């Protein structure tokens, strides 16, 4: 394994009894990149992350984290990882600074140095004013930033973030992303799971999309958008009652293009091999059907929905 491969998974498998949560997946994460693991709920993202973080034993296949085997060298791996879990698990009975100090202690960081590092990470995450605050007085976004600060106190080589922005408001999310981009510029390697496609698009250099315990697509966000969807998407929104007739019309007008139907929207994607054709569509004709038409650039969300389906996974 090259020194710059921080995570290497070959045929990585996780089974819980008869349920296969992760089914023989292969991927690697190299130093300095932000690597995204995308997928709907139950796709196997968190199971994968838990194996990498050495808190869930590998059932089968090969996994190396920082060149080490999680089954035998969990403590040495965990000493070099920074983990930002899905659920906040800050110590609500302690202040912000005490949280960081207690956490630094788990890594054998001496008291004086722990305090120094705590202030460093608080500055980095714009939380210095909250140092003596109790956790319950922090907003959701601040708690998330503090959880990242806590993960950074041990100066990890790899930061693992499991759905880090679930449940926080858009402003807080923007600030959170800005902080992660800053870390990335400073050379931090990151492994991120998310089901916000925008998050993956703004942060990740490479992503894998998981569905049904397997990897169903991989590449840079731009490559995936280009190869799976193309550049443009047209959404045709219908009023109730005209669906049947309207869908028929769209099929005729967009003949040869790829179409996805839902109850009230038809999505028109570029034809494979003929990217320009979608631009020739007569959008007025759709509007004459009584539909609202939106033409926009394709996003990673289109890729995700096209590959994993539009049905709700619960």
């Amino acid at each position, binding site marked *: 394994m090259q020194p710059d491969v921080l995570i290497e998974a070959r045929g990585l498998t996780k089974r*819980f009894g008869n349920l296969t949560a992760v089914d023989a997946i292969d991927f690697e994460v190299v130093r300095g990149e932000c690597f995204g693991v995308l997928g709907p709920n139950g796709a196997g993202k968190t199971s994968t992350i838990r194996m990498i*973080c050495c*808190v*869930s*034993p590998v059932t089968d296949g090969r996994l190396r984290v920082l060149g080490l085997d999680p089954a035998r060298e*969990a*403590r*040495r791996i*965990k*000493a070099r*990882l920074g*983990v930002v*879990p899905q*659920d*906040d*698990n*800050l*110590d*609500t*009975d*302690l202040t912000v600074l*005490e949280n960081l100090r*207690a*956490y630094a*202690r*788990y*890594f*054998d960081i001496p008291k004086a140095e722990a305090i120094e590092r705590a202030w460093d990470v608080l500055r980095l995450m714009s939380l210095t004013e909250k140092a003596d605050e109790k956790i319950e007085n922090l907003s959701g976004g601040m708690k998330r930033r503090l959880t990242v600060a806590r993960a950074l106190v*041990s100066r990890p080589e790899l930061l693992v973030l499991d759905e880090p922005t679930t449940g926080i408001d858009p402003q807080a999310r923007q600030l959170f992303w800005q902080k992660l981009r800053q870390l990335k510029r400073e050379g931090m390697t990151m492994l991120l799971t998310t089901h916000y496609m925008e998050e993956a698009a703004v942060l990740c250099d490479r992503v894998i999309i998981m569905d049904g315990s397997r990897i169903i697509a991989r590449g840079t966000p731009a490559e995936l958008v280009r190869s799976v969807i193309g550049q443009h998407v047209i959404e045709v929104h219908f009023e109730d009652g005209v669906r049947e007739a309207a869908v028929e019309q769209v099929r005729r007008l967009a003949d040869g293009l790829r179409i996805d139907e839902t109850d009230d929207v038809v999505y028109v994607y570029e034809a494979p091999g003929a990217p320009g054709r979608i631009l020739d569509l007569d959008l007025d004709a759709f509007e004459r059907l009584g539909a609202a038409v939106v033409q926009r650039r394709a996003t990673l969300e289109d890729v995700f929905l096209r590959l994993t389906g539009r049905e709700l996974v619960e």
Partner: protein
Amino acid sequence: MTAIDVSYRTFKVWQRNRDVFMHMWKAETTWPVFEPLVVLLGLGLGLGRFVELESGQDYIEFITPGVVAAFPMWTSIAEGGWASYNRMSYQKTYDAMIATPVSLDDVITGEVIWAASRGVLSSFYILIVALALTPFWGLVQSPLVVFTLPAAFLAGLMFGSMALLATSFVTSVSQLAYFVSLVIIPMFWVGGVFFPPEELSGTVQTLSWFLPLRHVVNLQRGFVTGDLHPSMVVDGLWIALVTAALYRAVLWSMRRRLIK
């Protein structure tokens, strides 16, 4: 069953709990000080007026070692039960800790030692209360009474492990009531705190011998009265044996629950 994976880092788990405790020690002090005080005075003097022991001992004197044994038990049970369940399930403190070089066995061991430490602190408060009452009722009869503290630590390891074992099985905090009402409360009332266990009828007396609290009471009775007895060695061994078995069981059970 894999080998036990405990390191010096278990102490860091203990330190974390201490840090939290330092925020609330005042409120946490009232319970172990006032409950034993009320029980000693209320039962010892109030009920004691109607009690005549074969040994001729005053009732308040008789129940003092039991109080020294039983109330720290409650503290350790509360810590290993409700408080640990809260950390494990709601605050997800265990998850946070095992993401670091701390192992799950370190976490559980630190929790057990912490529960024992809280028991020692409670027994220390009770000792102060008992010493304060001694000029009036002669409750403490020997300087050997200081050994009630290490005995409380050993007992705390046992009761802490026992409560954590219950915690490892329940799926809601209210389910701990099964453990407390079916195991701890019967042990509390028939474990030799309030009346000599020799008074129990045949089979019940034989069964009650196995109750860990009974042996803790015997040990503490020896240290409070200064009347050491060879049977205390058996008490100590039984407590050590039960502690070892419960500790091993709780490590196994917590791994079963948390490492998936």
